[in-house]
């Protein structure tokens, strides 16, 4: 195996050095034209520490997360490979992880995955051989040089293992039980589902701080008051408080995006100043181009950390 050249520090190194971890997200396209995605990667790779790559997000078939992770690596960025359990059984996931490891992917975010009927291949067979906690444990097994069939491999892998948690889940207690299971299964860092209510988040962090893990607050860019209302009605575990909806609604015509940017920048500053989390994960779904502006308004320059 040829030596992998890492241009950026790994997110584990960033977190362990005590720096505020800033990550973005790349949503691969539907189809072989990766020009726009490549632009987004170019735009983000030096502005954030690393980029998540979604894995057939929302059960919609897209360019693969693993392919995008390698592209980011080639372009001198740092990928966070998202792996879901929806489309691959344990054997396929293990093989993909071997591939990812040998090509320099160092961070893996483990998810169960959305269900098939919410996506665009409604007749497809869903797999869910495993779920997120079992996937974390699978990686740990591979780190011990074995596969989940109990067979010895000719070496071991090593990943910084991540998972997600939904601080606004209703009911919350089962979510917290699963959170702990993920910690026990080897999760070293977490990204949250989109959070907007900082008081709720601060309360959640009191629980999360009991564990020896790092945690990034997940932030989704609001682009309109309608989007906020839509998420409240349709996205489980997301709650945009009324004052933020009002703030979005009061934006001048054509200025809603500016207001969304302003809100997120304010949230980032608050999280950083109050030490609410170890970093932020910025999801600017479809608006990746404005991430540098958000960071500028948040006065967050990773090269100066």
């Amino acid at each position, binding site marked *: 195996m040829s030596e992998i050249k890492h241009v950026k520090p790994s997110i584990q190194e960033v977190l362990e050095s005590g720096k505020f971890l800033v990550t973005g997200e790349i949503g691969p396209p539907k189809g072989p034209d990766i020009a726009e995605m490549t632009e987004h990667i170019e735009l983000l790779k030096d502005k954030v520490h690393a980029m998540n790559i979604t894995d057939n997000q929302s059960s919609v078939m897209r360019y693969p997360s693993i392919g995008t992770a390698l592209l980011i690596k080639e372009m001198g960025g740092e990928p966070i490979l998202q792996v879901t359990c*929806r489309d691959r059984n344990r054997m396929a996931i293990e093989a993909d992880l071997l591939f990812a490891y040998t090509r320099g992917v160092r961070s893996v975010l483990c998810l169960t995955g959305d*269900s098939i009927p*919410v996506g665009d291949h409604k007749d497809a067979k869903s797999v869910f051989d495993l779920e997120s906690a*079992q996937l974390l444990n699978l990686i740990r097994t591979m780190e011990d040089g074995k596969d989940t069939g109990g067979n010895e491999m000719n070496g071991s892998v090593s990943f910084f293992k991540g998972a997600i948690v*939904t601080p606004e*889940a209703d009911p919350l207690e089962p979510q917290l*039980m699963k959170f*702990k*299971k993920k910690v026990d299964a080897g999760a070293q860092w977490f990204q949250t589902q989109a959070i907007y209510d900082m008081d709720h988040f601060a309360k959640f962090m009191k629980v999360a701080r009991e564990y020896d893990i790092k945690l990034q607050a997940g932030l989704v860019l609001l682009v309109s008051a309608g989007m906020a209302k839509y998420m409240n009605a349709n996205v489980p575990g997301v709650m945009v408080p009324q004052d933020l909806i009002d703030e979005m609604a009061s934006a001048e015509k054509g200025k809603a995006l500016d207001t969304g940017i302003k809100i997120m920048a304010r949230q980032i500053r608050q999280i950083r100043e109050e030490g609410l989390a170890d970093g932020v994960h910025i999801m600017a779904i479809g608006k990746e181009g404005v991430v540098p502006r958000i960071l500028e308004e948040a006065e967050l320059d990773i090269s100066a950390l």
Partner: protein
Amino acid sequence: MIITNQKPFETILKELEDAKSVFLVGCGDCATLCETGGTDQVAEMAEKLKAEGKLITGMIVPDVGCHELDVKKEFRVHKDELEKADALLVMSCGAGCQAARSATDKPIMPSNDTLFLGNIMRYGQFEEKCRLCGDCLLDVTGAICPVARCHKGILNGPCGGTNEGKCEVDPEKDCAWTLIYQQLEKEGKLDKMREYRPPKNWNAVLKPGRHAIERKKGGEANE
């Protein structure tokens, strides 16, 4: 019981397009309760097919449509009517169709889609509560099955799609893990939910399933 739903009549007619004469087979058990293969539905189907110009050579409703020996016996009794038929329309589940399959070489067409193993909630309403996985874990889930009742069939608690106790794929359906949580809380046994469940053996029953009751030597078995 096995829940079935009758296919659209046009689909059934299409299945039978090459058959001028048809022998009908119902089921006295599950398909009767699902109103897809009881005496009434078989008689009704006979009338509808006659109206489409088909000759009905005969019809039977075996007590249990998937009991292969009994179905064979019934077929022997109705040998002449069967002989005259170009095809059989089996108004039972997939298992019933295949019990008929092993009893004749005639073409067999299904009138029903077979949906799931279901509980009867009230008359004419059924819900799936067991997925026949061969490796029962109801002892640790408050007797509520996540394999059957969680859309994703996951084993370590709710996914991110759970919402106020409902499922992301259908807000009419309960989140199984919320139900499990509530039940174990009532029992004071939430620790069972906190325990990590390893990946499941999905091949506990090697497909296709086969099972024979083991008989003790000198016991009750008919040797």
